[in-house]
């Protein structure tokens, strides 16, 4: 029950993040359709030019076409070029109308929606000002000089209104967009904090309760040392002690994981940090080369733990002098290789050593291929992890 409710809640919370830009596109669609209807109605109701039906047809065709084009390119880095093109098209319609007091004015205003809400606010305001300036030029190009002063005053006033409205529209939209963005950031932050608190609680429970029991069991078993007769019995006790030690270290890892999640930091940065930490112990030199792309959170967490475990193993058990970590962002796969020049893998796994098993489990969880074997030239150990590329199909 709670699980399903939790899921639904998460879906609801995920919506705004997903729809941020789509919402502004919906506003664009709405206003542009309205602007087009208004333009066509005005063209048909009043005789504006000698070619009104053609202009109406062009508007009818351009409106859906422009929306399609803008929608397709909304998130592209060169989207501003399309917005500029869109504005030029609207200006062309105004010019075709032959007068700056144009039926296409509202239509032209709608070209401001995407730049105002997508650009940083300073650039958005600059865009709005440029629009006004361009409209002023259009006005100059289509102006017919009036005869008397009163008409002149009214014209000037109307022109001023025409030139101010774009600036006001752009500023308002940019401001709303900024506020929404801040709101979203704040909400994201509070969610992260809540998640963090929950993690701390689980970590504490693991540490406080489960681990204490394991310690007690471990203590009792180790007290049996010497009291157990027979090879078989001693093997069993040693096995149990090994398991309990592994359980403790598993719990420590989980607790550490719960307390210090990756927090959205890139895996390669964390790995470099970990490598530096381990180098400081003076056991081996660790070089990290290459970089990784941004990975989804779960994949990132498991990838980091696999690599960190491989590094720890190399430092602890390989007896090596140098460890090289190679990160590569290939076309089909993202690969991590951790190779050392040490003694290589033992023929028998260490008792209580669950590291390799947990690495394999993690790799399986994220659909990655893990290969552990002799290093280059048969020396040392190499751990190679290949992840499906995050840019590929999900």
């Amino acid at each position, binding site marked *: 029950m709670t699980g399903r409710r939790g899921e639904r809640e998460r879906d609801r919370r995920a919506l705004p993040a997903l729809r941020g830009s789509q919402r502004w596109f919906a506003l664009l669609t709405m206003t542009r359709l309205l602007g087009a209807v208004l333009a066509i109605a005005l063209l048909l109701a009043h005789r504006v030019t000698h070619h009104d039906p053609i202009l109406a047809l062009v508007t009818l065709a351009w409106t859906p076409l422009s929306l399609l084009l803008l929608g397709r390119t909304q998130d592209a880095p060169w989207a501003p070029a399309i917005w500029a093109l869109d504005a030029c098209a609207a200006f062309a319609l105004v010019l075709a109308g032959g007068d700056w007091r144009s039926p296409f004015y509202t239509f032209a205003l709608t070209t401001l929606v995407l730049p105002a809400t997508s650009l940083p606010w300073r650039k958005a305001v600059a865009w709005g000002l440029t629009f006004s300036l361009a409209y002023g030029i259009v006005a100059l190009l289509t102006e017919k000089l009036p005869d008397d002063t009163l008409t002149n005053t009214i014209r000037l006033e109307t022109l001023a209104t025409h030139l101010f409205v774009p600036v006001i529209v752009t500023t308002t939209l940019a401001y709303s967009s900024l506020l929404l963005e801040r709101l979203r950031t704040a909400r994201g932050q509070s969610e992260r904090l809540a998640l963090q608190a929950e993690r701390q609680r689980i970590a504490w429970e693991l540490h406080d309760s489960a681990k*204490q*029991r394991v*310690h*007690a069991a471990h*203590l*009792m078993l*180790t007290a049996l040392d010497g009291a157990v007769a027979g090879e078989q019995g001693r093997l069993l006790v040693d096995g149990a002690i090994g398991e309990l030690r592994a359980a403790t270290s598993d719990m420590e890892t989980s607790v550490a994981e719960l307390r210090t999640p990756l927090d959205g930091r890139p895996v390669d940065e964390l790995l470099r940090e970990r490598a530096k930490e381990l180098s400081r112990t003076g056991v081996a030199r660790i070089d990290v080369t290459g970089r990784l792309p941004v990975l989804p959170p779960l994949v990132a967490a498991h990838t980091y733990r696999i690599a960190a475990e491989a590094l720890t193993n190399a430092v602890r058990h390989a007896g090596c002098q140098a460890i090289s970590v190679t990160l590569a962002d290939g076309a089909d796969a993202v690969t991590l290789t951790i190779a050392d020049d040490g003694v290589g893998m033992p023929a028998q796994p260490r008792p209580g050593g669950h590291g390799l098993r947990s690495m394999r489990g993690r790799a399986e969880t994220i659909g990655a291929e893990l290969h552990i074997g002799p290093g280059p030239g048969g020396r040392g150990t190499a751990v190679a992890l290949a992840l499906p590329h995050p840019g590929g199909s999900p």
Partner: protein
Amino acid sequence: MIRLLIVDDHPAMRAGLTAVLRAEPGIIPLGTASSEEDLIPTLNRTKPDVVLLDYHLPGADGLKLCRRLKRAVPAPAVLLYSAYADGAMVVPAILAGADGVLNKSAPAPELFDALRAVARGDRVLPPVPRELLEAAGTRVDPEDLPILAMVVDGTPVVEVAEALRVEPIDVSRRLDVMIERLRVEIAAV
């Protein structure tokens, strides 16, 4: 014969420790306590030689209790028993007057040896790494640094007071302040 009092808030740990220590010759577990309130009457009644003290107890931390135990006359030897894997607690433990620090993951024979050692009056403390001591030094008042250095070195409080020409109670107060400052880091673990 070592007369021992066990202080741990977790029932599994109390039961396990009692069972294991009862079976060990030369060690007599006198009883157990699960909290500070429990501990004081039991302490007065049993007068143990050694107290095996869990580091983390509800409502009170092991460091404060350790200070309190070490002020009792006669003061029992205190072995701080902790599930924390890191060494960050060693410096505050020394300041609190603990005779020993042992990780809960240590096998039973190690526990027996540690208990015997503190009962003899020895200290069972892991060596304090230089960085750890330096880190502690940056967190305390600069004027408390001589006290920190001497106490970590094993100098008794009375001698520290003599060397600095102050009353032992003043040194004690400074120690309380230092423990409080160093404790924050452990509580956040």
